[in-house]
């Protein structure tokens, strides 16, 4: 378990990890509530976070440890396409700016905790709400599991192998999330984000200096991609890859704030201005993510070899380890330890918030809806706390008992399936034109298309002679070659983008059909003025009652 361990690194890592664990438990007393046994407190931190806390919380929530290892890994392997994370996180905030304040307002008036709560009230359909809840849980679960992959990559780079350290880390995480709820990741996010900012800023100054400048770094990358037989890689996009780049960035941006954990962060904020200010301030993280992506090129120049790579057997190794290995090579041990801890702690914040969000979906939209209709606030909180444990155990098992590749595949689909809730949630905030059964039909069609499309996409590699080698027949990526749809072209497109188009078309057609058949529409218990309510508004009650 501990062969070739870098003692200094591991010590620094362990100290920082232990320190944030203490913070996680102490968080229960932070901005103390009268009673933590209420979902507004445990699950939304009292719905009272100001601009700074929200900035750290949502930043810590959206820019996950997995992002930090996987984005540079993609740039390392394929080049420019991996940089889609930057346009993606530029456009997301202007897109959701107006949408989120509407969601916040109506959720505050009615006391909604989850997106499915809103759907239930807006469209008057418990079936649709259940579908939105299940979609959210299914999309979130593999995302939690991938945070473990992030921690594992760091541990591997420090020479620590085996499952015990991960189990311990997750057990501690589970315990303080159970204890402190959303306050734990909110407090830990301060440490996580501060560490990330320091590490990345140091990295983009020190590493290029050591490697002979950006010229040398990009020169090495160009040389690598020129030598590579893959026609799709390069430091700029190959012509046909541009469509996929743009649709991937746009589709991912549409999906991001449909994820339950993003919405949890938004609903926890104090008023509309907190959200608006954060839409302007959160791109600071996008800048860091962009710099981080460039670490992939630095790794090329530095000659980083992924752990597990073996030229003799053709074993590709774990590409997620390239950033930790780069840190290990470039930094003195103590600072490499800090850098590893930044990534490791970076996994804890999103994992906690995601498990809280999934647990809230379970409680509000399944437990209260179908199992215990008269649940007290205390029972709701209890149910969520227990569910957050179950979710984490599930994620742990998914990584330890199954091939982690399963979680990676699922997460890939996760973005596509969560996007299918867009008509019910995001468009639903603006209009009730869609019939509730139309929304259900559209959801089903979008899901079916998304699965079909990703099933068609193989994962390929290229032999030195330029021949295509199929590594995996199905679920090999999210770029659907347009030839699959009968077009004679080399272009690919983000499967999720097509899936949401299919969804919208079916939604509209089915709506017309159901209206013509005079199928009764659901009752809308929200009022249009409620979409503009703010904190100091008389319409807004201090402790919103639960609306079912």
């Amino acid at each position, binding site marked *: 378990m501990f062969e070739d361990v870098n003692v200094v690194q591991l010590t620094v890592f362990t100290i920082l990890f232990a320190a944030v664990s203490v913070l996680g438990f102490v968080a229960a007393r932070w901005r103390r509530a009268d009673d933590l046994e209420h979902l507004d407190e445990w699950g939304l931190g009292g719905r009272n976070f100001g601009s700074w806390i929200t900035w750290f919380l949502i930043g810590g929530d959206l820019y996950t440890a997995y992002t930090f290892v996987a984005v540079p890994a993609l740039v390392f392997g394929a080049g420019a396409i991996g940089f889609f994370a930057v346009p993606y996180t530029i456009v997301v905030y202007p897109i959701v700016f107006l949408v989120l304040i509407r969601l916040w307002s109506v959720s505050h008036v009615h006391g909604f905790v989850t997106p499915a709560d809103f759907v239930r009230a807006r469209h008057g359909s418990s079936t649709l709400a259940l579908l939105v809840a299940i979609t959210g849980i299914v999309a979130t679960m593999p995302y939690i599991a991938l945070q473990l992959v992030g921690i594992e990559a760091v541990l591997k780079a420090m020479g620590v192998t085996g499952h015990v350290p991960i189990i311990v880390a997750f057990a501690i995480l589970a315990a303080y999330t159970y204890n402190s709820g959303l306050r734990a990741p909110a407090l830990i996010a301060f440490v996580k984000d501060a560490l990330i900012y320091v590490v990345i800023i140091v990295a983009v100054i020190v590493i290029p200096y050591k490697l002979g400048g950006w010229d040398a770094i990009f020169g090495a990358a160009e040389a690598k991609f020129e030598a590579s037989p893959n026609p799709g890689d390069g430091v700029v996009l190959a012509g046909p890859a541009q469509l996929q780049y743009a649709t991937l960035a*746009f589709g991912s941006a549409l999906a991001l704030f449909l994820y339950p954990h993003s919405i949890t962060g938004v609903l926890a904020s104090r008023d509309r201005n907190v959200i608006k200010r954060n839409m302007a301030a959160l791109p600071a993280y996008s800048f860091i993510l962009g710099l981080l992506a460039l670490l992939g090129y630095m790794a090329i120049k530095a000659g980083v070899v992924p752990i597990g790579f073996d030229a003799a057997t053709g074993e590709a190794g774990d590409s997620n380890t390239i950033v930790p290995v780069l840190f290990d090579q470039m930094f003195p041990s103590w600072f490499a330890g800090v850098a590893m801890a930044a990534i490791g702690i970076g996994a804890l914040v999103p994992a906690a918030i995601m498990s809280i969000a999934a647990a809230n979906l379970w409680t509000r939209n399944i437990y209260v809806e179908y199992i215990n209709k008269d649940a007290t606030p205390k029972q709701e909180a209890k149910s969520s706390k227990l569910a957050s444990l179950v979710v984490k155990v599930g994620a742990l098992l998914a990584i330890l008992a199954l091939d982690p590749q399963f979680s990676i595949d699922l997460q890939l689909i996760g973005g596509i399936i969560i996007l299918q809730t867009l008509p019910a949630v995001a468009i639903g905030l603006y209009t009730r034109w869609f019939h509730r059964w139309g929304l259900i039909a559209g959801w089903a069609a979008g899901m079916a298309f998304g699965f079909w499309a990703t099933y068609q996409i193989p994962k390929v590699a290229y032999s030195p002679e330029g021949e295509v080698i199929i590594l995996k027949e199905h679920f090999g990526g999210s770029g659907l070659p347009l030839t699959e749809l009968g077009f004679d072209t080399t272009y690919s497109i983000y499967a999720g983008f097509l899936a949401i188009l299919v969804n919208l078309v079916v939604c509209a057609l089915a709506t017309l059909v159901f209206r013509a058949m005079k199928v009764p529409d659901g009752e809308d218990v929200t009022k249009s003025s409620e979409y503009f309510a703010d904190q100091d508004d008389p319409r807004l009650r201090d402790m919103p009652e639960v609306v079912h």
Partner: protein
Amino acid sequence: MSQDIPESTRRAERSDHSQWNWLLVLPLFATLIPMLYNRTSPELFGIPFFYWYQLAAIAIGVTSTLVVYRMTRR
């Protein structure tokens, strides 16, 4: 004209409508058309255009959202 003002004021009170909101479209045009920036030159400190342009485009996103926030604050 004078009758329009109370109407528009009332509308502003209970909606998020504003001409400034159109600024939010700008970052999408700036970043979602890769043809605009998919090349290596001009380089900046040895960084190809593709990369430094997109990093700089973050400022376009920030400015748009910031202006909309300031101008629609009540």
